[in-house]
Structure formats: C-alpha cells, structure tokens
C-alpha cells in the first residue's frame, strides 16, 4: 500500500493535524471518484452525454424568448441575446449542478464513509469535479452558437480560464457547507432545489446585470454568482463588468470558501457516527 503514513497516532482531534498532507496523499482517490461519477452519470440514459448539450440549449431558448422577446430586455452592446444568455448560463449551470451534486454526495456514499477511511473532503470535491465535464461539453457549444450568429468575441476570451476557476471556487464554498449541513440535517435535501430555483431568477442569467439600477449594483453583487457571470460575459460578449461590484462578489466568494471549508472540517470527523 502506498499511502497511509508509517506512524499514525489516533486520539481525539488527531485528524486535524495532517489534514492537507493526507489530502495530498489520497489524491488518486479524488481522481478515481471523479472518474466514477462521470462514468456512472449517464449510464442507462438513452441519449447519454447529449443531456449536457440539450439541457443548456433548451434553457437558453426559453430564457431568450421570455426575457429577450417577450420582456424586451436589452442585450449587452451588439451581442445577440441568445449568446449573452448562454454566456451567463454556463457559470450558472456549473454552480447549480456542483451544488446539487456535492450536497448529496456524502449521504449518497454513506456506506463507504462508514466502512473505510480516506479524507472525506474528496467525496464532495469529486462530485464537483464530475460536473466539470458537463461544463466543458456545454462550453464547447458556444463555438457553433457564435458561428451561427457570425459573432466573434474580443481578446478577453483568453481570460476565460480565470473566471472558470472563480466559478469553481464560488461553487466549492457553499457546496461544502451544504454537504456538511445535509449530513446532519436532512432538511437541506428539500431546501437546495428550492434555493437553486430562486437563484436562477435572482442571478443575472436571463438578463444582463446592467439592467439593475446603479445604486443597487453594489448590493446586487453580494450574490457571488453575479461577479462570475459578469466575468464570463466580459470574456465572451465584451461587456465591461462593474468592477467595484466584481470586487464585492470576489470577496463574498472567498468568504464562502473559507466558511464552507471550516464548517466541513468541523463536522467531517463525526460523519461516520451520524450516517
């Protein structure tokens, strides 16, 4: 066996001491759990990975019709409304699927948690990792979409990876927190879909955040997803973000990341006793 340390001391609180070293030592488990999640996700579905294409495409159509055509919301600059919506939907889907997959992950792997040791953090991280594949597939859809509208993005598109990372960071924090809460209080199983449903309308997915009145934009940016979506739109359709708001969103993301990790660590040692 290659991983566990040569000398282990088990006593109350001992798990905290080598937390990051352990996590690194078990990195292969993260990889294999992610691979499992991806491999299993579309088993026994008729169209398989095509769901990763169909779901955002249909959502985009609906949002474009509702907000762009019926609601006559303005687009960003001269970008087609559909492209603008799609650029906002990518990070939103990343966030919402990461949150829903992560939050149920420990409970879903209860037998494993009760029977074998490895850092518990790997389970929600693997669940989030698994949703990244869907994200990549959906993101690839941008190419034909932009070609259809004969739209070319500006130089900022090169910065997209930075905002993808920001989106992942924004998902990991609340994801871990909800995972830990869901183990203790199963109420969250019902709360999360509800939160995500509201989130879709509260966040600037179907419309641009420029429609929010100037005085309120700073407050609006307390929603961390606002910053991520603005970043994506800047890269893809060239709408300059409202930078003070972006700073607020980033700070909220950092806060949630710390909070999520702290709450997860505080409860993970008793997971096996609670499941």
């Amino acid at each position: 066996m290659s991983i566990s340390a040569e000398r282990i001391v088990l006593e109350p609180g001992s798990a905290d001491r080598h937390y990051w070293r352990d996590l690194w030592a078990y990195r292969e488990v993260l990889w294999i759990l992610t691979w499992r999640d991806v491999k299993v996700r579309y088993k026994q579905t008729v169209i398989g990975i095509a769901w990763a294409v169909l779901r955002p495409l249909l959502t985009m159509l609906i949002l474009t019709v509702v907000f762009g055509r019926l609601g006559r919301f303005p687009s960003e600059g001269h970008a087609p409304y559909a492209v603008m919506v799609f650029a906002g939907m990518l990070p939103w889907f990343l966030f919402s699927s990461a949150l829903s997959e992560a939050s149920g992950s420990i409970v879903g792997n209860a037998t494993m948690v009760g029977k074998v040791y490895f850092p518990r953090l790997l389970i929600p991280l693997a669940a989030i990792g698994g949703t990244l594949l869907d994200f990549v597939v959906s993101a690839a859809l941008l190419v034909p979409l932009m070609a259809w509208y004969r739209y070319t993005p500006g130089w900022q598109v090169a910065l997209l990876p930075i905002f993808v990372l920001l989106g992942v960071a924004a998902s990991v924090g609340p994801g871990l927190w909800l995972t830990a809460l869901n183990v203790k209080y199963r109420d969250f199983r019902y709360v999360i879909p509800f939160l995500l449903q509201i989130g879709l309308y509260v966040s600037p997915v179907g419309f641009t955040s420029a429609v929010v009145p100037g005085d309120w934009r700073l407050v609006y940016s307390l929603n961390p997803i606002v910053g991520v979506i603005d970043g994506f739109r800047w890269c893809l359709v060239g709408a300059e973000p409202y930078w003070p708001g972006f700073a607020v969103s980033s700070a909220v993301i950092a806060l949630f990341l710390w909070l999520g990790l702290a709450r997860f660590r505080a409860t993970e040692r008793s997971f096996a006793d609670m499941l």
Partner: protein
Amino acid sequence: MADVVIRAERLGKKYAIAHQRQGARYVALREEIGRAASAFWRRARDMVRGTQLLDGEDIEEFWALRDVGFEIRRGEVVGVIGRNGAGKSTLLKVLSRITEPSEGRVVIEGRVASLLEVGTGFHPELTGRDNIFLNGAILGMGRAEIRRKFDEIVAFADIERFLDTPIKRYSSGMSVRLAFAVAAHLEPEILVVDEVLAVGDAEFQKKCLGKMSEVAHGGRTVFFVSHNMSAVQSLCGRGMLLDHGRLVADGPVSDVIQGYVAALESASREARTLEVALGPGLVLRRLAFGEGGVRSGEDAEFRIELMSAEPIVLSEACLLIHSELGVRVALVDLRNAGIRNVRVGDQGLVISGRVKSLPLVEGRYRIGMWVMTQFGGFEQIDLAVLSALPGAIDAEREVYPAMYRGFVELEFSAGIEQGATVASREARSSLA
C-alpha cells in the same frame, strides 16, 4: 519496545443515544401538539448550536468502548471476540480511522489496511474491471500497483469471463469473490478484518482463510473480529474478549474462547432477566434452554419470553444451536410448531416447548435466535448456553471421548454375517 505495532492506551468511544419516553397509551391532541412544539424547539436549538439531532426525549451517553488498552507485536494474529454490541466493531472503526476515539490514544506503526466490509465502494453499474480499480483505490492501492496485480486479482477471483460485465449482473458469490480478491492483494503491514468471511461459499471461505494465514505467516500483523470461533481458533494465536466496551480477557486464543463460553454459561444460569434487543422493538426478557444441563438422549425444555413496548408481529422465530466454535449444529424452526405471525405486546409473550430426546454429543452449545418482524430479520447469537451431559445410556456402552464424536449421536443398528463379502464369494467359486 520497538516491535510493538499497535499500542492502545485507555481507549474510549462515546455515543449519544436517545430514548423515547414511555408515556400513557392515549395522548390528548393538545399534549401531542405540545410535544411536537417542544421537539421542534429543541431541534431548532440543536441546529443553531450545530449539534446532532436525536429522536427522543431522554438523551443518554453511552460508552461503546471504555478504558481499553493493549499492545500488539509485529506478526501477531489477534482474534477479537465478544457478544453483539460488546464494542468489537467500534474498536475496528477506531483502528481503521473511520471514527475518532473520544478519549485515550492509539499509536500504529506501519501501513494499515482495513477490511470492514467486502466490496466497499463497488458500483453496480460499473464493470468488474472498473470496480477493481475503484475498490483498490478506495482501499488504498495506487493505480500503478493495481495494474501490476490486476491479473493476479482476476485469477484469484476467478471471473475472467465476466471482466467487462457490470457487476449488477454478477451473482452475489461472484462479487464477494472479486471484492475479497482485491482486498487480499493489499499487502499491508497491518490488516484489520471484520467478519467478512461470513459470506461466500465454503470453498471460497477456505481460500480466504488460507490467504489470511499467508499474510500472517509473512510476518504481518492481523487483527481479526469474528463470531466464527473455529476461524478465530485456527487463525489466531492470541484472543481478546470484549464485554460491554471493556477488554475483559487477553491471552492465548483457546483460553479466551473457553473463558468466553464459560462466562456465557454462568451468565445464562444466573441472570433471571436478559433484556436483550432482538432487532428494533422486540426485547428478549429471558431465554432458557435445558436449564441446568440435559442428558444426551433426554428431552430438553425451552422457554422464550418476549416483550415489545409497541405491538409487533413476530412472523418467524428460530432457536439456533451452535457448537462452541460457532459451527451451526441445528435449527429449531418454530414455524413448524405453528408459531408464525404472532403478536407481541407490552404484556409479553412466552413460547415454551421441548426438543425430544436431544441427540447431541455432550458439551456446551451456544444458543442464539433468529427472528423476523415487520421491521426485518435479526439474528443474535450467544443468548444462552445449553449443556449437554453424558447420556444415561453412555454408562452402559463404550464411547470415545466427546472430541472425536462430532455433534450428533445417531441411533443405529448393525449386524454381521461371516464370510459373505462379494470378494470372498468370488474367491470361493474360482477355487471350485
């Protein structure tokens, strides 16, 4: 000492459990609402504080393990025995880092692999090949290591033809074989094993035991928990007995097993009431089977007293008779006496009966029970001890010592006829 690989000092593990207060039979709606409101208030308070939610009014601390200390040297094979709920599983969980101790400490020198379940993390949708990698990684093998041992694992499990079939199509025997094959190739310095050998067919069990003693003879340390005393006895040199979370005996394995069975016997003789839970809801208050010992060949009477706070339907009940080493000798299936779908309430239920002319060779037999209620099936071994005494008839006939006579005394007859074998008849005809 340098050669100690596991040292446990004053180890303890505490759980919080909750009881439902036993109230009056009929509760006014008003009281019920009041109770629900106070439960909600308590839960909301627990959640704000971040403590665990427990169902019930009285919360009690329960030590699953207390003040346990031992040292295990390199190459020792230790068997842990004890009744259900004695703390064996908790000890394994602490040693394999699944749960932290509440007090005390354990120092482990060397790499540990623990096998508390066969096939942890197996995914039914994935193929045998995929699951080998998945399960191996979860148990702590690197990918390169799994790839190196892959062929050996497949050969040991004997599943070559089904390697690319999802394991949901496997028979349960096949997936157990595959799971054990992965675990057997872990090659840790310390192996912690729960009763995983209880599954699989006899031949495969033998193979597993063989593999485990191979591990043990390779100078590695094995920590083995089982109800199967013959497996413990044949595999382990040292035994540890846990009772109510405490380590009560530690020494050569045969002494510990004998002490355990003897203690069980005296406990079943002394204790007037048992109060053992047989699964959710059902309580065994007393179990007597041939109390005071029964002579082989004579009738043995039994009496089972059950109780349940809430009415429960007992659909099946059996008495299990095991040998001292845990081999099942007989089953008294009470369904065949018309005892099925019986209601048990707070007034209690007594089942009594007799086994006619007990055919057991003298010795001690461990008595357990299997019950089935609407909440599922439940098996509990070691509830009482039946002492079979030398039969009256034995005084008049020649007998070998009990250890050579197995478990069952057969009634038989035989006669002789001189020179009547086929061979001798042929010999005679060729002479003529």
